[in-house]
């Protein structure tokens, strides 16, 4: 199954079990979603439940908040992370705060989902990542789907949960293949150990997990050590337990993220390691991030602005050398 099909399946099944689930966004209905995530759903559930909206992101999320207050379970799709910026007032001032401000009298069972990140030469206004800002907002749960199984289970969970959840996808993952495991128990708040290892813990999420996995064979070959790769999955709250046991085993931590380095999400993980795990660390933590520039269009510059398997390998190998790993 493809990642986008897994997302579609999650929405479809949630809509089937709960008829208050509605989907709203630009081109989500007749067009089937610009990444085809909502394809076919309008035929099954009709225009009342698949709502094509005008290009007005603030209203997409603002209306979703009101729909949730009025008794529905809205799933709001924003076409791309950069357009979600237009809805940040509703996400941060409304969606995240109503429950707390009302002393729990208002619940907002809603999801805002969007893809983010560098795709292929979409340039500065279509390539950014905002997990750092959204994870810094108390009152929001933030999920980041790095693989097909998580995409399906976590989105279905998010839609049927009573909390306001931001669900982040990646532009380049929609055609990623994978299996959905319907038997095993699933916890969307648990980090995923993508690969076990004993010498270096590498933490990542979204598409960077694939880039890390592509780099790992070469890193292991050059270092003669083994890497443990963790996909964080839930960015807020964070599954510190999984991180802690990995870090205790390896004594080191590397975070790989696509976003600009300044004020990045990964800094939070490194900060936790420094504050809480200092005495388990045998090496200085390493953060591999994107450059602090708007994303350029030219392909070479674009690739130079984010981590790639080659640059990840290079930075980890050089860090290992400096830290006696």
């Amino acid at each position, binding site marked *: 199954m493809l990642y986008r099909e897994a997302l579609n399946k999650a929405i479809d099944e949630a809509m089937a079990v709960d008829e208050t689930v509605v989907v709203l966004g630009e*081109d989500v209905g007749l067009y089937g979603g610009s990444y085809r995530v909502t394809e076919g759903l309008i035929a099954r559930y009709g225009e009342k439940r698949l709502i094509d909206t005008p290009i007005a992101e603030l209203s997409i999320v603002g209306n979703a908040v009101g729909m949730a207050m009025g008794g529905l379970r809205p799933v709001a799709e924003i076409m791309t992370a950069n357009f979600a910026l237009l809805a940040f007032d509703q996400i941060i001032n409304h969606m995240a705060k109503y429950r707390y401000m009302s002393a729990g009298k208002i619940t907002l069972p809603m999801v805002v989902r969007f893809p983010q990140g560098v795709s292929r030469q979409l340039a500065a206004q279509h390539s950014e990542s905002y997990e750092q800002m959204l994870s810094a907002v108390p009152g929001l749960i933030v999920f980041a789907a790095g693989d097909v199984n998580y995409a399906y289970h976590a989105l279905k969970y998010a839609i049927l949960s009573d909390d306001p959840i931001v669900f982040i996808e990646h532009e380049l993952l929609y055609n990623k293949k994978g299996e959905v495991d319907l038997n095993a128990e699933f916890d969307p708040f648990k980090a995923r150990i993508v690969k076990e290892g004993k010498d270096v813990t590498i933490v990542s999420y979204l598409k960077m997990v694939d880039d890390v996995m592509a780099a790992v064979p070469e890193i292991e070959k050059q270092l003669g050590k083994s890497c443990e790769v963790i996909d964080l999955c839930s960015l807020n709250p964070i599954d510190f337990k999984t991180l802690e046991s990995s870090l205790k085993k390896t004594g080191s931590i590397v975070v790989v993220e696509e976003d600009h380095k300044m004020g990045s999400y990964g800094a939070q993980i490194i900060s936790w390691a420094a504050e809480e795990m200092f005495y388990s660390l045998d090496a200085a933590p390493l953060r591999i991030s994107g450059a602090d520039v708007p994303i350029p*269009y030219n392909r070479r510059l674009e690739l130079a602005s984010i981590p790639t398997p080659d640059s990840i390998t290079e930075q980890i190998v050089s860090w290992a050398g400096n830290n006696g790993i």
Partner: protein
Amino acid sequence: MNKLLAEEIYYDMVLGRLFELAAKEHYMAGDIAGFLHLDIGQEGFSVAAMKAFEKGDVFTTYREHVMAISRGIDPQAVMAELFGKASGISRGRGGSMHLFDPSHFFYGGDAIVGGQIPNAVGCAYARKFLGQEDGVMVVFGDGATSGGAFFESLNNASTKKLPLLFLCENNGYAIGTKITRVAPFEKQAKKAEPYMLTMEVDGMDAVAVYKAVKEAQHLIQDGHGPVFLEAMTCRYEGHSMSDPGNYRSKEELEICKAKDPIERMEKVLHETYLLSSEQIDTLRQRAQKVVDDAVEFATAAPEPELEELYTEVFCKGCANVVS
């Protein structure tokens, strides 16, 4: 309109069409990437608006190659930008959606729908403040008339009586969504009526667009305050190269293509200005040569250096925060 101008408009339209066809071809060949929004079918609108709004600032969207060229930006620099090359008008860092050239007072490349509209309001304020009364024109699609910033801009521009022309390119669709599915009426000028003078023009008729934009520019220059002009157009291609465009029927597309602005202008050249078929052919050949040269130039142009990644983040001394 004199003969020379009519010829010039026709020539630019043909140039625009051929440029877009070449861009399409080179997108499919992999020389151009990202989102490529073609203006095929709307050349009459894009060219005539630029020719009419001679002086003053122009803000527009990602569907702006034809406008950029017609504004006077070298087609070679535009094509090289699409190719992501160092000789591009934005030195390869902007691409198709971000063609900026302040030397031509052209800010053609905001890809956040509606995002350029409040910028144009601010620019009109600044120009008025500084005593430059050429006026500002902001071009946007029908899809951009439902966002908050659009309504805020109508309010602000009319309160301050700014020299601003709101030029709406209404092609009936925002990607795959028909405007009437997400707005209560087909013509969006209605939204501006309480705030300012509104006008409508057939966007497939270059001569009519030229006259309407000229008239509107005179009004805003004369201290009338903002004007809203809506041009009804249709695009032949999908929203961008990534859009197969299945939401439009064959018949609908046929009706659209029957209004071809280039054929229409050709007729005007024949009938009103008595140009011969040979003379028209010469114009076409000249345009084809310019496009061929632009492609050749873009192909041969160098890639930006990797150091370019960190330049121009700030005005001076561009700190390399990440080294």
